[in-house]
């Protein structure tokens, strides 16, 4: 029951695999320790799958640069979401990212078959480090989102077709977290008016305020190349036509080396656009450089 964009996910994942198979073409991957680049986040920055972390994309340490390409495909009962993203980080200080999101709503019988948006992001490491020193790594970020299919969001009561998210994230990895199994914890606070990430526009008929949203992740390195994590992301609920629920996911990420990361996850998106209990999975592939 999926439309033409059904092919987008597999194609995007194939491209990602190809990118992953061509590691470090003209650039040595950075020096930071394996798995400290995190996994592709749904809005294009480094993080867990749903939550932006304080870590920066790629493995660049001070005096180095790096970044990553990623594709992600999520499928729930009624929706398909495909994301392509790229990011680059300099000096382990500043990260610039771009992402395109395409949500297949073919099954909903609305005027558009897809909702899509572009996201440009910037993140700055303000203090601390993921592993070293006394402070956790603390970063501040901004995301500019522009909805490209605003007819349906406007009908649903959204006020604007673009908007900003601002967030602060603190992330720490304790190497000897659980008897030698490193444990990561992340807390992110975000200010946002975005409905379903922005795919349903910004602000709404029911609520149009900026409000602090809390997001968190915990993860454990089961092996040097295997990370198991849980994430929770609070969401706004601005539109009267349908409830928007908080999101959560459990992910397993494989880091066979510093050039390639494969992530699979179970995701629970709750009610989305009037469709109840959207549970499913996502898969992402990432190539670091």
């Amino acid at each position, binding site marked *: 029951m999926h439309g033409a964009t059904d092919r987008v996910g597999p194609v995007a994942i194939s491209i990602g695999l190809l990118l992953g198979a061509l590691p470090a073409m003209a650039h040595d991957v950075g020096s930071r320790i394996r798995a400290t680049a995190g996994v592709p986040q749904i809005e294009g920055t480094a993080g867990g799958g749903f939550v932006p972390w304080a870590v920066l994309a790629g493995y660049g340490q001070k005096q180095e640069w790096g970044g990553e390409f990623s594709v992600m495909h999520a499928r729930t009962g009624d929706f398909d979401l495909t994301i392509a993203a790229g990011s680059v980080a300099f000096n382990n200080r500043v990260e610039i990212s771009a992402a395109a999101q395409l949500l297949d709503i073919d099954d909903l019988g609305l005027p558009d078959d897809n909702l899509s948006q572009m996201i440009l992001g910037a993140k700055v490491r303000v203090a601390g480090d993921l592993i070293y020193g006394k402070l956790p790594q603390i970063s501040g970020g901004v995301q500019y989102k522009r909805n490209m299919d605003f007819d349906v969001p406007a009908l649903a009561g959204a006020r604007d077709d673009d908007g900003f998210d601002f967030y602060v994230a603190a992330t720490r990895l304790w*190497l000897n977290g*659980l*008897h030698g199994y490193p444990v990561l*914890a992340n807390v992110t606070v975000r200010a946002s008016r975005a409905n379903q990430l922005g795919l349903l526009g910004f602000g709404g008929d029911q609520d149009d305020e900026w409000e602090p949203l809390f997001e968190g992740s915990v993860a454990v390195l089961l092996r040097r190349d295997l990370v198991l994590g849980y994430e929770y992301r609070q969401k706004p609920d601005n539109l009267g036509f349908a409830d928007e629920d908080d999101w959560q996911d459990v992910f397993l990420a494989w880091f066979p080396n510093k050039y390639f990361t494969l992530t699979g996850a179970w995701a629970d998106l709750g009610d989305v656009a009037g469709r109840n209990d959207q549970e499913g999975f996502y898969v992402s592939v990432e190539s670091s450089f």
Partner: protein
Amino acid sequence: MGRKNSGLLAASLFAILGYGAAAEGAKGDALFRDLGGREGIARFVGAAVASAHSHPRIAFLFEDADDGNLKGQLGDLICALAAGPCNYEGLGMREAHSGMEITEAEFDIFVELVLDAMEQSGISHSARNRLLALLVPLREDIIHQ
């Protein structure tokens, strides 16, 4: 807002943070044994130093070292950190790295070579990370000296 489970989330995070902080202070010679004792430590230290000599970005830091002495000192340091029956009698970290101007990147490269060497000599994930947790606090006295 949607479902309000964030209280539970916050509590879980704090529980894990607290446990993590407590576990880093763990003592006893279990780690020394898990690293394979003096022999095990000597094996992976030797392998890591050998890898460093052929690494394009950090070989120059090891060029002028007396290899036997370096391996001995590093082995003693790790043995002592792991609460093994050794004393580290070498220079303090600041003195030992004085004038080398080691960067964050070079430090991380050597850390990964040590991790590779430990993995290749069959030391468990848990023991590798418990040792790494003890080495990480030394970084501030090693880099930029």
